[in-house]
């Protein structure tokens, strides 16, 4: 690398952005890490325990914080990106507060937003008090108490898979890939918290494709007595006692099934973040049919955009777990360093 320090801008300080910034700084680059929120950590911060090992998310946050506490990383929180242009081989990023930042290369790590469950109206989120989302449940876990809206401890709890995923009716035909294992993890945690609770997962397919997911699934059956019912919930209603009535076909038994529950947890899927979509429009970057950023090549260009010098890291390209996100961020760094060598700036 040349004596002159390369300047890189990383957009988004979630797991991907923090890892990218840290690794680039280690490689000797001068990094500006831009984050629209006041705090770093992104979506990881709203999770309590992580699959598959029930680790406290605080440990991951701690690691990410240590990655960005380096001299050559300039962290700008509360900063929105207004524009991104390439001008004679260099990049100019305009911020919401009117600053212009220059860089040799840019890494976009704008992450994902959770599907807003109220869009799946028939499940009653935002209508019935005891229909909550997976993120709401994590918040309850962190507070240390899982309670119904009336303060009662829920004894019968349902978890609905594929909310906002694999569903053309909400415009998301893809699988978010992590909700199945999140359901398994949350079901186990619920059972730990409420020892006599009966817990039911409503699934279409159990997609246990990650490391130790299948083992977790089995453990949830063997050690925690979690019940799995194969069928997509079609609608939810509330009775006069504010219990929730779930309508589903038990597709394996081949008959419609009705069940009364105290609480229903919706496993919200992952979508391209609003910030990411806005940036795509402003910077003229392509998005794919699932609205995530379209990468240059599915097999060997998953960190590259169609603009030379702009790279992607993490869930702004597709749903990923934390392990994959961190690996993807490191791979982005390899592409950035290679690019800097070729331009020889």
């Amino acid at each position, binding site marked *: 690398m040349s004596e002159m320090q390369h300047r890189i801008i990383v957009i988004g300080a979630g797991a991907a952005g923090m890892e990218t910034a840290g690794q680039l700084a280690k490689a000797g680059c001068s990094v500006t890490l831009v984050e629209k929120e006041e705090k770093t950590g992104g979506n990881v911060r709203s999770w309590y325990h992580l699959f598959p090992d029930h680790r406290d998310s605080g440990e991951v946050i701690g690691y990410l914080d240590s990655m960005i506490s380096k001299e050559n990383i300039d962290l700008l929180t509360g900063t929105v990106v207004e524009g991104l242009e390439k001008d004679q081989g260099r990049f100019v990023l305009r911020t919401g507060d009117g600053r212009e930042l220059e860089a040799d290369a840019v890494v976009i790590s704008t992450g994902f937003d959770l599907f807003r469950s109220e869009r799946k109206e*028939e499940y009653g989120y935002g209508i019935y008090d005891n229909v909550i989302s997976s993120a709401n449940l994590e918040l309850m876990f962190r507070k240390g108490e899982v309670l119904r809206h009336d303060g009662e401890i829920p004894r019968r709890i349902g978890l609905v898979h*594929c909310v906002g995923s*694999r*569903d*053309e*009716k909400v415009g998301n035909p893809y699988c978010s890939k992590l909700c199945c294992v999140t359901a398994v993890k949350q079901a186990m945690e619920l059972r730990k918290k409420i020892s006599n609770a009966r817990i039911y997962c409503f699934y*279409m*397919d159990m997609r246990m494709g990650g490391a130790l997911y299948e083992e977790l699934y089995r453990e949830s059956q063997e050690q925690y007595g979690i019940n799995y019912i*194969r*069928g*997509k*919930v*079609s*609608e939810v209603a509330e009775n006069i006692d504010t219990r929730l009535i779930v*309508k*589903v*076909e*038990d*597709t394996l038994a*081949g*008959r*419609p*099934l009705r069940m009364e529950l105290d609480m229903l947890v919706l496993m919200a899927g992952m979508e391209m973040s609003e910030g990411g979509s806005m940036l795509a429009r402003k910077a003229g970057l392509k998005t794919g049919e699932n609205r995530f950023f379209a990468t240059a090549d599915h097999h060997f260009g998953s960190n590259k955009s169609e603009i030379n010098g702009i790279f992607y890291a993490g869930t702004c390209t597709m749903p990923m777990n934390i392990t994959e996100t961190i690996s993807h961020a490191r791979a982005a760094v390899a592409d950035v360093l290679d690019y800097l060598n070729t331009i020889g700036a």
Partner: protein
Amino acid sequence: MEKFGFTILKARHINYDANDKSVAEYIYEREPTFRVCIECGCCAATCTTGNFTSFSLREINILLKRGELDKVNENLKKCMLCGKCTLVCPRGVNTRNVITLAREALKNNFKDAV
């Protein structure tokens, strides 16, 4: 001959090779979304007919694809074409058209069809 009470049981297999898949083919051609069903059962869960009779569109889907037509023919006439299944289908299957086409195809194949 002495009868000992033994009988030969008929195999329970879906005789896939011998079964008649022409009705499914007929629907595939005219309503390609028929192929993308993932058997989630949303249609059957929301179905008014299915709440009171043994009618399940999900089951009909799979039986048509396997060529198990007897049960399909029995059940198809129960559908009232209300279209709730179309509203809830996460794969965008045009379920109502599937039913209509199945009735049409079976009418040509079966004398007692709907």
